[in-house]
């Protein structure tokens, strides 16, 4: 019963492949995307954990920032483009090595998170950054970047292409057969590949907790790349449902759910995204609040919860042992890998220690829940052994 919506939904270059694979299309961030295929969320989730899942994430916002008048000196030009972008985010962009990607946060003056995103430094083009922002926030994000760089750099959106995520322990072997050299890439790096005269930007990252890659390719090459990847028996397409359950198990926050413009990086448990240099300089939006919270304690903190019984979903109240409401679930559901319900939500710091016995209110009934460390399922990112 795959239904094509009559609404004004955008489609991705892979729409025909989704419907052919039995994709159940749903509206998501203005796009028609598959929540699942014939396999179903559970099967797609488990397949990604044990082999490789292929996701269409073309709704997201990839783009490039390129310095308009580069000097030609790689370090000078990188410092210049980083200097234009850093006032928006809390990460160390200047310190990126060629080809390196960093997870960072766009912040408002109150220290709230406008978006979480990836910023990478071009491996070869001086003064150029690769950014990937979230679908629901991309218009605002791109406006911010364009305004921040002004006439000194050019923002080129790439969300008219296709972005594929190949995730899972078999992703590297599968991709290496199509893009030789992919296996040599380090975690959180990117580079371009030429294949059939087409340029593909491959990033070794993802949002499932598994090793994997995100592949940016031209729209008219998307189905070719999709077909080559899915021709490999180790790869099965996976939809938005599995993407959400995988990232939940990995303890990764989802913008618009676990993160919003009121949540600070410290509250969200994303303090690692504040680089030492930026902290010492206190030169990012909302630094006053964020650094104060880092020194003392925020009012609330994001925790993982192991839930007994029915899944506690977004919006469910978190109660203390006595039944007093102390917070709200921001993401929750069933964890296929663990065979039980898990959730993330915000509670006061005094209730945030792993082992703390809390409750969640599901359909007006209190169920036991315990604070547990995240990730719920260990990350299995690729780590190069440090040779030098």
């Amino acid at each position, binding site marked *: 019963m795959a239904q094509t919506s009559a609404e004004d939904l955008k489609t991705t270059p892979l729409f025909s492949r989704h419907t052919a694979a039995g994709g159940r299309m749903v509206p998501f961030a203005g796009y028609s995307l598959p929540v699942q295929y014939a396999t179903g*969320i*559970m099967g797609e989730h488990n397949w990604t954990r044990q082999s490789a899942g292929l996701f269409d994430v073309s709704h997201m916002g990839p783009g490039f920032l390129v310095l308009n008048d580069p000097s030609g000196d790689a370090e000078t030009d990188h410092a210049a483009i980083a200097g234009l972008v850093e006032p928006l985010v809390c990460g160390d962009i200047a310190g990126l090595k060629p080809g390196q990607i960093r997870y960072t946060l766009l912040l408002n003056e109150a220290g709230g998170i406008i978006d979480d995103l990836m910023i990478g430094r071009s491996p070869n083009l001086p003064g150029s950054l690769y950014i990937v922002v979230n679908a629901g926030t991309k218009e605002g994000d791109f406006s911010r970047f364009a305004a921040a760089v002004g006439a000194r750099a050019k923002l080129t959106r790439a969300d008219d292409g296709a972005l594929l995520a190949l995730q899972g322990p078999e992703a590297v072997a599968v991709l290496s057969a199509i893009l030789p050299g992919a296996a040599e890439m380090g975690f959180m790096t990117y580079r371009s590949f030429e294949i059939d005269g087409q340029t593909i930007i491959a990033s070794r990252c993802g949002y499932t907790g598994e090793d994997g890659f995100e592949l940016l390719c031209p729209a008219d090459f998307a189905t070719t790349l999709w077909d080559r990847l899915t021709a490999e028996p180790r790869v099965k397409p996976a939809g938005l449902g599995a993407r959400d359950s995988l990232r939940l198990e990995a303890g990764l926050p989802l913008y618009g759910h676990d993160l919003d413009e009121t949540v600070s990086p410290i509250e969200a448990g994303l303090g690692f995204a504040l680089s030492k240099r930026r902290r010492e300089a206190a030169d990012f939006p909302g630094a006053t609040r964020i650094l104060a919270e880092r020194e003392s304690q925020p009012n609330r903190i994001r925790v993982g919860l192991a839930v007994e019984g029915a*899944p506690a979903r977004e919006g469910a109240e978190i109660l203390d042992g006595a039944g007093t409401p102390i917070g709200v679930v921001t993401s929750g559901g069933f964890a296929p890998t663990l065979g039980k319900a898990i959730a993330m939500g915000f509670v006061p710091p005094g209730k945030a220690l792993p082992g703390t016995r809390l409750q969640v209110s599901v359909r007006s009934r209190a169920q036991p829940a315990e604070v547990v460390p995240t990730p719920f399922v260990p990350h299995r990112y690729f780590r190069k052994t440090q040779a030098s």
Partner: protein
Amino acid sequence: MTTKFTPDHEYVRVEGSTGIVGITPFAQEQLGDIVFVELPAVGKVLKKGDEAAVVESVKAASEIYAPVSGTVTEVNEALSGEPGLINQDPTAGGWMFKLAISDASELDGLLDEAGYAEMTK
């Protein structure tokens, strides 16, 4: 023995004055893998259309409504340990609860098999 259907995809299989309630194969297919089932208490009095049970898939919770009025006489305890029974065979091993039907005339307002098949075509 007849089976009737609601537009919300519950079935009620009538055996004498007892109605056996579950969700249709179409509904389980739409919901996907069921991971948790909440059943009514035995003895609970339900009016037609009352929320009687909840089935949870990975993605969402869905309410199951009483297709007719009655008193819950038995629930399928096997579902608490094995909610996937609803996916495997929703009309047999995946039944959810039994009702002592209080007003058999309500059955007339439900869809018959042909009508339900037409609706889900």
